[in-house]
């Protein structure tokens, strides 16, 4: 699904489907790219509503994380994805498909720190924070 959606975006308007870049571009203010970015985000939310309607168990809140931890996580993700120019979709899926060296390095970096962080929460906080 993600791969095909990325292909469709590439085929139709020639863009890379990186969610953090699409959202970040929207936040940057008005420019010519606002329409497709907005439509893409609306599509994500609409997808969310259809999951809620047809497969509600597929959306789950993290049981082992406090809202404070999740809030801090959001800040890290927001700053980190703009600094590193991508997230799991842009670097992980689209970038690796294009055999981009930058994306390979970025993916290795966020995989390493992602595993390290969740494992550290397990080791030092008993799996919940």
């Amino acid at each position, binding site marked *: 699904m*993600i*791969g*095909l959606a990325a*292909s469709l975006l*590439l*085929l139709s*308007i*020639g*863009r890379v489907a990186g*969610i*953090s870049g699409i*959202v*970040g571009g929207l*936040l940057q203010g008005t420019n010519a790219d606002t329409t497709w970015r907005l439509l893409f*985000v609306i599509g*994500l*939310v609409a997808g*969310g*509503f259809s*999951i*809620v309607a047809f497969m509600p168990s*597929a*959306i*789950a*809140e*993290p*049981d*082992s*994380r406090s809202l404070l931890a*999740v809030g801090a*996580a*959001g*800040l*890290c*993700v*927001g*700053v*980190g994805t*703009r*600094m*590193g120019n991508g*997230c*799991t*979709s842009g670097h*992980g899926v689209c970038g690796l*498909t*294009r055999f981009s060296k*930058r994306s390979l*390095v*970025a993916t290795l*970096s966020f*995989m390493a*720190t*992602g*595993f*390290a*962080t969740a494992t550290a*929460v*397990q*080791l030092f906080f008993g799996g919940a924070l």
Partner: protein
Amino acid sequence: MTDANKVINFLNPLGEWDPSLAFVMVGAICAHLATHRFIIKRPSPLFAAAFSLPTAAHIDRRLVIGAGLFGVGWGLGGFCPGPGVVSAAGFGPAALTFVGTMVAGMVIFQRLDRGDEAAGSA
């Protein structure tokens, strides 16, 4: 991916490890890989004048540190940007909190970054 517990369990091999998320990512790459090369061989996309693909090739500290910081947030909260936005449609407090602070983080960084660029070019 919209199940934050599944993401956290994927990233934590010392807990109740659930490696299934790796298949989602590999599956997405395979699906995209199958169509990608045929698409970019076209002279242009269907509804735009030209393909607009990333051209940066240099690997710098900013890329590694930024991606690393993103990973810390991913392992800490169990959300990455796409699934976070999708999950927010469920109006769960964690998903809404995540998207709120993620947007704040993006705005803060983009402001600071633009400031740096302006200062650098002056």
